[in-house]
């Protein structure tokens, strides 16, 4: 099949030729193929479980331009599987950590960073600078966003997803092939798919699937082999069995079909049924609160308190007290990140959004959730005046 990128005027230095010699001597790659890799621009959405092996191997292979989209911070519990990040990176932005390692593996790769939440306002513009998109995200809303943006941009979506010890991989959004919506027209309503009921993911699993993704990206660039277009690979790591199912392009697909009805990006949180707002009637009980002084005292005493920040990522970038960030609108679908046996102090900018979050959490069985009175503004006022206010 024809390769995805045109043969470019990219040249390889003597150093690069030596670096990639094991590629160059293969008939499936050769100098011409390596130049295609160098000319290719691949966007990795997410630098976590799937994104780690994906980015590592694409960098090693000599993909010329790698885009990385991630706004998250390295968490201690990530280290079990997100092999781009080290213990010393805990607390750092994943992007910073990723760029350090990828550049160390291959300084010839140009890395473009996007410290942001991918959303309907920025996706098309971000995608426009790349040839292939690799989706390594962990929630339905973003998966549908990436899919739709790929179809609308005409860029292939190299997809993988994992659950505990099973994974799926495929390529969506090629012109003749199906898209993600051909396979799954609608997401499950929140709370119905028991994705978090049992918990856990085998650390090696995203490694396995992420490298499958990287392999497919490279095959698309080189134009070799049989890509996973129209094929869904199912991996059961415990049985080490690989099965394949056929995915057909749905002629009535609202995004990639003959008569598309989705011609621009929509509100994917709404599409996935995420509202984040409970009805007014349910906020009857008084919301339990904690003053900043009290929180400070207990944190200093090393009490086991989980601080939850329900603001937006751009607010977190301005100032934060190292809370775990889950924007209020995402809380229903990300509630599985929280442990109801722990004490959770929720804050936002001034205390209003966090009050709603605490109300929602308590109704969801999180009896130990309390609201930080006055939010991070009060904290900056009274506890740590070095922090900026906004």
């Amino acid at each position, binding site marked *: 099949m024809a390769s995805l990128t045109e043969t470019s005027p990219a040249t390889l230095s003597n150093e690069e030729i030596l670096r990639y010699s094991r590629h160059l001597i293969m008939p499936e790659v050769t100098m011409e193929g390596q130049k295609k890799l160098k000319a290719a621009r691949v966007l990795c959405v997410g630098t976590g479980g799937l994104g780690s092996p994906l980015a590592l191997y694409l960098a090693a292979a000599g993909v010329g331009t790698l885009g990385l989209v991630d706004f998250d911070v390295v968490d201690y519990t990530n280290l079990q599987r997100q092999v781009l990040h080290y213990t010393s990176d805990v607390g750092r932005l994943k992007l910073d950590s990723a760029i350090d390692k990828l550049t160390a593996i291959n300084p010839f790769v140009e890395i473009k960073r996007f410290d942001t939440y991918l959303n309907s306002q920025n996706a098309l513009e971000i995608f426009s600078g790349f040839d292939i998109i690799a989706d390594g995200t962990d929630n339905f809303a973003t998966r549908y966003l990436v899919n739709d943006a790929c179809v609308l941009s005409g860029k292939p979506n190299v997809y993988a997803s994992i659950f505990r010890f099973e994974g799926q991989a495929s390529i969506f959004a090629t012109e003749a092939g199906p898209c993600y919506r051909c396979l799954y027209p609608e997401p499950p309503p929140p709370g119905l798919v028991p*994705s978090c009921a049992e918990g856990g993911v085998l650390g090696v699993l995203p490694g396995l699937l992420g490298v499958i993704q990287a392999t497919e990206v490279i095959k698309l660039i080189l134009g070799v082999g049989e890509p996973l277009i129209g094929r869904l690979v199912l991996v059961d790591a415990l049985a080490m069995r690989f099965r394949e199912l056929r995915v057909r392009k749905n002629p009535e697909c609202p995004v990639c079909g003959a008569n598309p009805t989705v011609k621009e990006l929509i509100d994917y949180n709404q599409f996935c049924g995420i509202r984040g707002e409970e009805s007014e009637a349910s906020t009857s009980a008084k919301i339990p609160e904690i003053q900043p002084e009290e929180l400070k005292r207990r944190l200093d005493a090393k009490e086991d308190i989980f601080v939850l920040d329900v603001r937006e990522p751009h607010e977190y970038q301005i100032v934060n007290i190292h809370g775990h960030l889950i924007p209020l609108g995402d809380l229903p679908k990300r509630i599985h990140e929280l442990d109801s046996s722990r004490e959770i102090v929720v804050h936002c900018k001034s205390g209003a959004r966090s009050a709603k979050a605490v109300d929602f959490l308590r109704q969801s069985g999180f009896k130990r959730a309390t609201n930080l009175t006055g939010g991070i503004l009060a904290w900056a006022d009274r506890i740590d005046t070095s922090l900026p206010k906004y």
Partner: protein
Amino acid sequence: MSIKILIPTPLRPYAGKQSIIEVTAHTVGEALADLVAQHPDLRKHLFSEDGKLRSFVNVYLNDEDIRYLSKDATPVKETDIVSIVPSVAGGIQTVAQAQKGFQ
């Protein structure tokens, strides 16, 4: 006749933790009906209130989606395998939940 249905991980808790269930059926529809008869907890995860297969769950006969065959009426034979393939988005995050999940 007796055929196998493969149960994906997210649904195994509702199928007695099994990964393969044997059912008796002549069509895919009958196979699924026998499945939820044996494991009633599965019903709401596979079917909506009005008895239709949920749109985020795909059913395959061998390697082909039944939407492109004869849907519920697709006939099955002894060596066929029916697979249920739900959409999944990602892994699980907290250590506490991971500890709860494993023995």
